[in-house]
């Protein structure tokens, strides 16, 4: 928080070291992006990296996309400050991949071309369904973008020694400009390489810290947990669930709502779905998910150790007093373990993470606007591919600017939590329609529109009138509400839960069914046959680009 910036005299690390290591990362990735861009010719190159990545490469890139600042900084911070309840985030985030693996990835790769809307509108009326899918893609991506940029802002004071909010804003702007450059020059190919490099650095950095923490605890997990619990103010509570969510009946329902959104959100995230188009076949898409599940799962096991390690070695009090609050647990732990150099490396990895994820989101959002809205809805498919890519690039710049402004505005928000909201919106607006259109013969346009708009609208409305936006718990010391609107006198919330999933997800499934059965539109048997046969056999699927 800005107010705490001066209180946190607890200065750590050397900004010059942090900036130097980050600059090396930027220089290396920029070189790779520029080289990768040499073969960018067609729309398939720009949107899907020529569909030429191997399953393993794409799996690592998916991990890079998925292990966002929320996973690294947010989950480690949540465990360090709320103990076991933080760990439950990572379980939901991981199990969710099975939905993508079993029900979505391969079928989507076989039927679509560039975007999620390709699949949703395959056998329905193109105009309205594509528009709806594009709107929900943009909303989910923006929520997610905001979370990442907020993470960047919160960390700046701590890592770069920049004081006050001007310095933070400048750094957010620098991240935004770099990201725009990656996307414009590198397209999906360049972005994918940035993700791969970042994922490898992240795993190595987190793995090193995990071993370090474990060796300090005598390679004994039980000792580590005991020491961490002893450092927590509420003794031993931190090793059992319920510290953050389980105190009231409403809190328990909120937790179930969060769990539902996490497990069903992943397979509806547009930037994750788009990554399946970067491989040449469904078999490689499957291999991507297998790789991603292993990398992501192992990483979350690391965060368990890092979180409790930070609780033990840094202590929740110091973490919460630092700029960036819970999000600074991992960097502070790095400083505690390896001093200035390790902090510099971890800080650079954290910034690289934010940069890479933001680039991935931007390319998804811009592809959705250019390919779905401009090319198919506005121009009705009569558009040159080059023209479409040009529009996508312009959109990327606009989205980059929106992300910078949004990031400056949201810089003090908890990031794991903002990402959880993006998951709730994705699970409500996207997943029901994806599943219905892949598996339900009768599904039709009205069903899709009711489900997408109903899920999107209800999720957003419930968030707007939840304690997240106004009327959150008032802090006894600062007299500020724990909401977007911190003024405790402004309170228009009537929905008690912070996460809307438990209402909006079932509602979206129900509306998809209701819309379908009340519509007289007969589903297109020919297109359904094509979709079903293609999705399962891979016949007619988009091929890799050969250079």
């Amino acid at each position, binding site marked *: 928080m800005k107010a705490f910036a001066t209180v946190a005299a607890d200065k750590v690390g050397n900004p010059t070291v942090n900036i130097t290591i980050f600059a090396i990362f930027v220089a290396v990735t920029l070189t790779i992006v520029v080289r990768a861009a040499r073969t960018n010719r067609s729309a398939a190159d720009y949107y899907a990296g020529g569909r030429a990545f191997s399953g393993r490469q794409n799996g690592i890139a998916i991990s890079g996309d998925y292990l966002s600042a929320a996973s690294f900084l947010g989950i480690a911070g949540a465990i360090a400050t709320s103990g076991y309840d933080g760990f439950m985030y990572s379980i939901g985030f991981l199990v969710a991949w*099975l939905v993508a693996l*079993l*029900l979505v990835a391969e079928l989507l790769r076989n039927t679509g071309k560039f975007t999620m809307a390709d699949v949703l509108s395959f056998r329905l009326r193109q105009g309205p369904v594509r528009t709806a899918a594009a709107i929900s893609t943009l909303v989910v991506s923006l929520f997610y973008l905001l979370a990442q940029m907020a993470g960047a802002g919160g960390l700046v004071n701590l890592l770069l020694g920049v004081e006050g909010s001007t310095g933070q804003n400048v750094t957010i702007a620098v991240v935004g400009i770099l990201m725009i450059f990656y996307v414009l020059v590198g397209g999906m190919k360049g972005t994918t390489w940035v993700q791969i490099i970042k994922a490898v650095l992240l795993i190595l950095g987190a793995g090193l810290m995990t071993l370090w923490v474990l060796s300090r605890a005598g390679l004994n997990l039980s000792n580590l947990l005991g020491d961490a619990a002893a450092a927590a103010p509420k003794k031993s509570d931190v090793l059992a*669930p319920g510290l953050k969510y389980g105190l009231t009946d409403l809190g328990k329902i909120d*937790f179930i709502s969060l*769990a539902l959104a996490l497990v069903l959100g992943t397979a509806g995230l547009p930037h994750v779905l788009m990554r399946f188009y970067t491989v040449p076949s469904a078999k490689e898409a499957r291999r991507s998910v*297998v790789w991603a599940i*292993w990398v992501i799962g192992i990483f979350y096991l690391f965060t368990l150790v890092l979180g409790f390690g930070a609780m033990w070695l840094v202590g929740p009090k110091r973490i919460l007093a630092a700029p960036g609050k819970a999000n600074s647990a991992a960097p502070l732990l790095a400083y505690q373990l390896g001093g200035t150099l390790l902090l510099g490396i971890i800080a650079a990895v954290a910034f690289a993470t934010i940069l890479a994820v933001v680039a991935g989101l931007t390319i998804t959002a811009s592809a959705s606007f250019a390919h779905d809205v401009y090319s198919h809805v506005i121009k009705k498919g009569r558009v040159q591919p080059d023209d479409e890519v040009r529009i996508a690039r312009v959109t990327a710049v606009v989205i980059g600017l929106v992300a910078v402004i949004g990031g400056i505005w949201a810089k003090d928000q908890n990031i794991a939590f903002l990402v959880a909201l993006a998951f709730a919106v994705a699970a409500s607006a996207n997943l029901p329609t994806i599943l219905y259109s892949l598996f339900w013969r009768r599904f039709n346009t009205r069903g899709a529109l009711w489900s997408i708009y109903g899920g999107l609208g209800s999720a957003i409305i419930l968030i707007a009138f939840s304690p997240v936006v106004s009327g959150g718990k008032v802090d006894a010391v600062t007299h500020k509400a724990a909401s977007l609107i911190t003024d405790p006198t402004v309170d228009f919330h009537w929905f008690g839960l912070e996460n809307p999933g438990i209402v909006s997800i079932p509602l979206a499934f129900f509306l998809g069914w209701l819309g379908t059965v009340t519509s007289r539109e007969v589903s297109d048997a020919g297109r359904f046959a094509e979709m*079903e046969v293609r999705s399962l056999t891979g016949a007619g699927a988009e091929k890799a680009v050969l250079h």
Partner: protein
Amino acid sequence: MSTTPTRATGPGGTAGYQQVQASAEFALLRSRFRRFVFPVTGLFLAWYFLYVLLAAYARDVMAHPLVGNINVGLVLGLLQFVSTFAITMWYARWADRQFDPTAEKLREHWERGEL
């Protein structure tokens, strides 16, 4: 969006998508796929929500220590990781060895007009 129009018959008199969809061989492929993925999805979702409900409503059970400071909650949480990895490898093996060859055979028959 698609470059392949929906034909009653495919190139060279082979079956079009609707004929393929109506064939016994495709019905078998589809039912094999669904008979694997639907029950497994039900299984892992049930196991996940069992865990979530225990965490929400059976805090004492979860807090029960097993070995040292390692309690039931941590072990169940780690078992979620184990089951996720196991299902992933199980599905990948099944898809590589059972599903892909069946789909491959169907595509061959389709191209030769033997559906």
